[in-house]
Structures are given as structure tokens and as C-alpha cells.
């Protein structure tokens, strides 16, 4: 790894992506692919995709894990550190500053309007996330049944979601779905 020629621009891009990740970091994927794969050939397509899949299969915030794997594949452990810190730092400072401000100025009309107005949009977006995931997974009636059973169980009972995940893994592994 050459610090000035490679690592510095790499880090700078993650800092920039952090600022651009409005509405969730998943929207950064095309630009990350463009910079890391198409432009610099630091990793290939398959490495990029498998890092994404692993970030989703492993517990924790997906996009952070994805960034850590990208950095690791490109520059080893220091690369993972640069990617994670870069992706988190600028947005975190903004979030903490805004949260502090919004609590001090909670009576300001626009602060209240901002919070009131965005809440329903957020709930709608979360429902879309669930819907898109479900559509992607709803390959046949067994899958649809599993999704519907999960929704019903988590709305009607206090069952720990972990048991539902384990049941899903078991159904899948046994070939029942």
C-alpha cells in the first residue's frame, strides 16, 4: 500500500461517501463499485458482491461490515480501519451536532415540523424495505408462507425473533421451503 497515492484517496472517498449517504448507506453501492472496481481495479466484481453478501449474513450493521471487508481485501487491516472510520466519522459528527441542537431548540417551529413531517415518511420507507425484501424472497408458496407466519408471529406473540430466524434457517437447511 502506498500511503499518499492509494490510501489517502481511498480514505478521502469514504469520508465523502459518509457525507453523501443520506437516506441510508445502501444507496452508495453504485458509486463504490465505480470507484473501487471499475476505476481502480483494487477488487473484482465477485469480491465486491461476496463482500456485500457476507456483510448481510453476518450480524451487525450491514454496510459497515461491507466497508470493513472492502478495506480488508484492498489494504489489509489498516484498510478496514480506514474504510470504517471514514464511513462513520463525518456523518456521526453531523448527527451528534444536529441532535444536540434539536434538543436545545426543541420549541423552534421548524425543528418540530421537521420531526413531525419526517416520521410518516420513515414508516412508509421501512414498510417498503420489508416489502422489497419479501418480494425478493417470495419465490414460491412455501416462502410466502414463511414470511406471513413470521409477520403474524411477531405481531401477535412476544416470541423472540431469534427463534424465528433459527426456524427459518432450519426449514431452509432441511429443504422444507
Amino acid at each position, binding site marked *: 500500500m502506498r500511503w499518499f497515492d492509494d490510501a489517502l484517496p481511498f480514505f478521502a472517498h469514504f469520508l465523502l461517501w459518509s457525507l453523501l449517504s443520506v437516506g441510508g448507506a445502501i444507496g452508495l453501492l453504485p458509486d463504490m463499485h465505480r470507484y473501487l472496481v471499475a476505476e481502480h481495479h483494487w477488487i473484482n466484481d465477485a469480491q465486491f458482491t461476496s463482500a456485500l453478501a457476507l456483510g448481510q449474513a453476518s450480524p*451487525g450493521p450491514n454496510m*459497515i461490515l461491507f466497508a470493513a471487508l472492502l478495506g480488508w481485501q484492498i489494504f489489509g487491516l489498516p484498510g478496514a480501519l480506514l474504510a470504517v472510520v471514514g464511513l462513520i466519522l463525518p456523518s456521526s459528527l453531523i*448527527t451528534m451536532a444536529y441532535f444536540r441542537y434539536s434538543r436545545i431548540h426543541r420549541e423552534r417551529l421548524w425543528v*418540530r415540523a421537521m420531526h413531525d413531517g419526517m416520521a410518516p415518511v420513515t414508516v412508509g420507507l421501512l414498510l417498503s424495505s420489508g416489502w422489497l425484501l419479501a418480494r425478493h424472497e417470495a419465490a414460491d408458496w412455501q416462502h410466502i408462507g414463511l414470511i406471513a407466519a413470521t409477520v403474524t408471529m411477531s405481531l401477535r406473540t412476544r416470541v423472540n425473533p431469534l427463534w424465528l430466524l433459527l426456524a427459518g434457517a432450519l426449514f431452509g437447511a432441511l429443504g422444507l421451503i
Partner: protein
Amino acid sequence: MMKIRPPIVFLDSSRNPSSQHAATRAPRNIGELFWVFNHLTLLGVGGVLPFAQRILVEDKRWLRTDEFVEMLSLGQVLPGPNLINLALMVGQHFFGWRGAVVALSGMLAAPLVLIFIVALAYSGFAHTPLVAHGLQGMSAVVAGLVIAMAVKLFPAIQARRSNWLWAALAFGGVGVLRLNLLWVLLVLGPLAVGLAWWQLRRS
């Protein structure tokens, strides 16, 4: 003994009586904050958000549903991954900037160690059908969990009839028409906030 704490002050909960359910509590100390975030992040295979809602709102009762939605919304409009922003805000709410750092560390420390182990193991097992099918079954459950969580959040936005419109438009734009999230936020955000501003000013 758990301390009973007043609601988050920037929320005028009188405007939203439907979400004033049981009294909320505060974390016992900053260490509990770390371990709870460590706990919920490790449960989050395929998505941490359903576990965050379950543990922070239903089990620990550190946040009411409307407070949770509020923080998620802010996490959505501010840059940065939503979950990271949620951890920062919950931590900051209880223990200031130290709390933000501790909650974030709790959320990231264990998964960052685990991911490298998983990555090494995965190169060996990725193509065994057992693992692939198991993961597929889990993905279907994750989809169900996210839908259920979104439904559970609806009480937080029942205060105004116009809220149903914004939720429906956001769902229609991103979920049905598959529009780019950023564009949907850029169009719906100002409209929804503008209407809320007008309604608040009138009242």
C-alpha cells in the same frame, strides 16, 4: 432499581397521545448501554433494526414507539447509516457524547471481529447447499421481521390524517415504483415537513 425517566423533551407527546404507553426507563449506567447495543447488534443477522425496536422499545423500554420513530427519521434524513445514527442518538440522549461513543462501540466492536472470522469460514462453506439453503430461509424470516416492525411503528404516526398520505406515498414510491430513495426523500421530505410546519403554525 430502574430509574423512571421523563419522555425525551423535544417530543411534545401531548400531540400524540396514542403512543404514550407505559413509562420509559433509563439505562442503569453507561456500561449497560454498551452491553445492550452489543446484544442487539449480535442478534441482527440480515438486519439489526427489528431487534433494535424489540429491545430498546419493548424489552428495555428506554424509548417509546414515537421516540424510536423520531430517532429513525432523523437518522434517515441526516447522512450516515441509519443504525449508526440511531445508536449515536440513543447514547447521546442518556449520557451525552460519551454515551454516543459507547453505544456506537457496543454496536460495532463484536460484529467487526466476527466478520473476519465469517469471511474466512465462508470461503470454505459458501457452496455447500446446506449453508446456502439455511441462509435463504433466514432471509425470508428477515423480510417478515422488517414488515412486522414497520406495522408496529404505525401507532406513532396516527395523530394526523395527512400522515397516512405521506406513509403511503413513501411506500408507493420506493416499494412499488422502485424509485431512487434519495429522490423520494428530496421530494416528499420538504412537502411533509412543509405541511407539518403550516399545521403547527396554525394551531
